[in-house]
């Protein structure tokens, strides 16, 4: 088995359009959630989100590219360019033939769907642009990444709702760990902040109208975000041989299915994923210093997640820190685990734990150290990143400082 390390990271999200700005915002406990700017926002009940503002696609892509790239693909490419640049890798020959890209997304080209449904249903048009299908398909972002960077090995897209990115990164980790690929580009992207996307979420009545307050007794739901996180996962020996700067090591993962309910989470399913990741990583629970929580700010998730953590860690649950950065960047749905992995890298590499902001009242059912409102300096060696999706599909990653 190969060791797997992260040698590049990139992102675009409501907190920043690169890793540096995102880290700065997380350290400041800044909130990227604000009023939504979109057509027909007055017809929405939920009018806030973690939207990416000031994104100029025209400055980053040419006209033909924009014709083919949904916003979720644009986000993925922006993040991937940063990550691959940081890694210093260029893909050619045998390395290109074996390296690939696995991305997570839940909705795929939702903006394209929304615009074109509007066109044919609302505006009554009988013809749509020929690129609608290649723009909206869930694998569009992964395919365009493979084309831009010459990644010719195993490449695909994983859609497991809110766990998509963690499942994708788990697959990339597996491919590098087993020696099938020397390098995998991985992460996730989502752009569901369009009229239809928000309207659909409104229907579930789990959205907050004012803020995302994970673990706080007065929490009243989740807030959607958008963006992407992309990473370069690389064989440790490969990275060392070329003198790459190593951001962190991926040491384990686990995936479980609750097999119980399409929306309600299960403590057992979450706990099995957490303990499975620890076992896979061969780390003792006591070594874990920080968990990036799934922490959606819904009543159901937060108490279930805290109970699962308490079950797995026993008395050590009171010693570790667990925060939800969704309070700052919102819930990126299929892209969320990727952006949240940044908080894990920041914890390991810079010794700063991102806070759970907008925290106002302790909840006895979430009685853990949730790093309320202010970032904290702390030395941690092993961290976990949780993702528990609708449909009961869970994926947890374990990272270690290098």
């Amino acid at each position: 088995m190969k060791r797997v390390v992260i040698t590049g990271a990139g992102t675009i999200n409501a907190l920043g359009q690169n890793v540096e700005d995102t880290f700065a915002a997380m350290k400041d406990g800044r909130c990227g959630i604000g009023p939504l700017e979109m057509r027909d926002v007055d017809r929405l009940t939920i009018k806030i989100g973690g939207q990416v503002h000031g994104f100029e696609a025209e400055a980053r892509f040419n006209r033909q590219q924009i014709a083919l790239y949904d916003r979720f693909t644009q986000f993925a490419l922006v993040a991937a360019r940063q990550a691959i640049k940081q890694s210093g890798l260029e893909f050619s020959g045998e390395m290109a033939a074996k390296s690939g890209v696995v991305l997570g997304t839940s909705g795929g080209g939702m903006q394209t769907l929304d615009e074109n449904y509007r066109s044919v249903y609302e505006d009554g048009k009988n013809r749509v642009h020929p690129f609608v299908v290649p723009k909206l398909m869930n694998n569009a972002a992964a395919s365009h990444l493979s084309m831009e960077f010459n990644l010719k090995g195993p490449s695909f897209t994983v859609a497991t709702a809110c766990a998509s990115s963690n499942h994708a990164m788990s697959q990339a980790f597996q491919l590098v760990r087993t020696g099938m690929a020397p390098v995998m580009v991985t992460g996730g992207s989502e752009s569901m902040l369009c009229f239809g996307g928000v309207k659909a979420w409104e229907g579930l009545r789990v959205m907050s109208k004012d803020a995302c307050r994970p673990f706080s007794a007065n929490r009243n739901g989740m807030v959607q975000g958008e963006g992407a996180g992309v990473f370069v996962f690389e064989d440790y020996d490969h990275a060392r041989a070329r003198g790459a700067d190593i951001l962190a090591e991926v040491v384990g993962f686990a995936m479980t299915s609750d097999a119980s309910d399409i929306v309600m989470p299960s403590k057992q399913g979450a706990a099995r994923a957490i303990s499975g990741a620890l076992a896979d990583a061969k780390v003792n629970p006591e070594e874990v210093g920080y968990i990036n929580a799934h922490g959606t700010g819904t009543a159901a998730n937060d108490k279930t997640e805290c109970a699962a953590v308490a079950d797995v860690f026993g008395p050590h649950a009171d010693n570790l820190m667990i925060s939800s950065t969704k309070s700052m960047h919102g819930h990126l749905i299929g892209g969320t685990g990727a952006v949240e992995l940044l908080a894990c890298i920041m914890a390991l590499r810079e010794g700063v734990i991102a806070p759970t902001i907008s925290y106002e009242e302790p909840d006895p059912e979430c009685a853990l150290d949730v790093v309320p409102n202010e970032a904290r300096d702390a030395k941690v060696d092993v961290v976990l990143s949780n993702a528990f999706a609708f449909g009961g599909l869970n994926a947890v990653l374990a990272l270690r400082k290098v």
Partner: protein
Amino acid sequence: MSVKDKVIEIIAEQAVLEPSDVTMESTLEDLGIDSLGLVESIFAIEEAFDISVPFNANDPTESDFDISSVTSIIAGIEKLVAEQS
């Protein structure tokens, strides 16, 4: 603008050329327009003239629409526009 000038404008935009660089004898291949560019051009032509072009990308040579050169495309569009009015 004549049908011919409008079609040339659409093809030129797709090929990222000036309209003056699109000659009547040019083939789409000469102009660097690939299969995806072709369907995008046909979409733009349909939108511009509010017509339906009988083009099947699965087998362009079997379509009732000749795309072998700029001349043949313009002739085909002129016929469709005339039939519609």
